[in-house]
């Protein structure tokens, strides 16, 4: 069987901007709310500035405190929103279609494998197995007009990759713990920001800019620290992706995987297994198989893979 005539439908690897879009959404919303509230209060004459004092009705507050407080509220709210968004993304089981695919594992990205995962545990992702699928399953990978990840090999060896996520409860625990930690830290963060504003003051434009920046940084740092502490406290023991018999799966393993397949924005809107429900290892690819792996060898080495689920109509 080896390589086939039909080329894979690969997409160019544009950067995935979904997490940044989420941050932008939070920043834009908070910015809008704050400016609308200030605009309305100013319009009705509730806000008046005299020297270095702001009068809200009959209450007097130092301008440094106000500048620091507003900057702190925006900064803390955006960080808190971002942490909550990550938690929602990591822990939501979205229903998709049940599919079975088979192929060779080309790469495994374990959860909590980078320094950033340790510093900001809510950004950690579930264990990801990149599976070079047999050409029999390309229709599944390409279904729903999804983005398709491919290897860099030239055609005809170029192969389609399906990302299979394995649920790691630590990721979810860390994300939820971080959201709680960030929420708890939000109030002290704003108070600290207001205190920094008061300390620096807003007597000149130079001090005012400095107060805004320092207050924003302080608030963000306090909320992030709360998220980091909460995330670490909630995170449990280490756990790597395993097959149905409880054995670790490795790069080069020939597997059949069944899972809940959906198009995921955070993966360039590609179809992924979110999450993989069952994995059967059918051995390893032969040592003589060329690297990087290609579907051509997998087609030959795994003719019977045990996938019995109906395929989508192309």
């Amino acid at each position, binding site marked *: 069987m080896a390589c086939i005539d039909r080329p894979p439908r690969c997409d160019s690897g*544009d*950067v*995935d*901007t979904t*997490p*940044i*879009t*989420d*941050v*932008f*959404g*939070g*920043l*834009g*919303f908070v*910015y*809008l709310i704050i*400016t609308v509230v*200030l605009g309305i209060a*100013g319009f009705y004459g509730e*806000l008046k*500035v005299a020297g270095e004092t*702001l009068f809200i009705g009959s209450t007097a507050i130092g*301008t440094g405190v*106000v*500048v620091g407080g*507003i*900057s702190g509220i*925006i900064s803390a709210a955006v960080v808190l*929103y*971002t942490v*909550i*968004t*990550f*938690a*929602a993304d990591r822990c*939501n089981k979205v229903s998709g279609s049940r599919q079975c695919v088979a192929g060779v594992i080309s790469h495994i990205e374990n959860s909590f494998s980078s320094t*950033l995962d340790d510093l*900001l545990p809510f*950004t950690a992702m579930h264990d990801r197995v990149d599976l070079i699928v047999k050409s029999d399953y390309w229709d599944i990978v390409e279904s729903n007009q999804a983005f398709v990840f491919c290897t860099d090999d030239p055609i005809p060896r170029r192969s389609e990759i399906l990302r299979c996520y394995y649920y790691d409860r630590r990721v979810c625990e860390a994300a939820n713990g971080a*959201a709680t930690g960030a929420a708890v830290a939000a109030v002290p963060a704003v108070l600290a920001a207001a205190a920094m504003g008061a300390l620096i003051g*807003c007597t*000149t*434009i*130079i001090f*005012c*800019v*400095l107060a*805004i*920046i320092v207050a*924003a940084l302080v608030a963000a740092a306090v909320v992030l620290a709360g998220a980091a502490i909460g995330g670490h406290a909630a995170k449990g023991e280490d756990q790597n992706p395993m097959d149905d018999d409880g054995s670790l799966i490795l790069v080069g393993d020939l597997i059949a995987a069944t899972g809940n397949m959906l198009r995921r924005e955070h993966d360039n809107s590609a179809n992924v297994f979110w999450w993989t429900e069952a994995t059967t290892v059918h051995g390893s690819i032969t040592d003589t198989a060329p690297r990087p792996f290609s579907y051509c060898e997998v087609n030959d080495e795994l003719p019977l893979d045990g996938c019995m689920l109906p395929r989508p109509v192309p």
Partner: protein
Amino acid sequence: MAFLLKFFEPMSSLGRRLGLCGMIGAIAGMIAGGSLSLIDFMHGGLAPTQEELLYVFLTLTVFAWALILFILYAFGRLRIGPLLLPSLFNVALVVALILLISDMFSVYNLAWIFGPVIGALIGILLCKLPIRIFRVK
């Protein structure tokens, strides 16, 4: 939690339409425009000197750039090496233009409105230029 996130969805979908370049410009515009309007309000009308303008430009540019790089790296998990110069150029241009317009027409009080708009436009335009250094892609 899902209920809370629905409030932010309109802005997130606007972000998707703007693309990465537009979002970087708009964030820089929010930081610069929002800060200038806030300071203008606290001082009852800003009339900065040339030195103060330069200071504000440098400070806001560095702050906005650092913040954007942090967002791209920590939250977006992007390799920031190739984004360093294009994002700096984007942010510096946005901050400079907002300061220029605010100062020229004495409209610091409106900078919070036109800041993000100018930022988004500059960002989108820069990414359409066929010059690699300007393109955050």
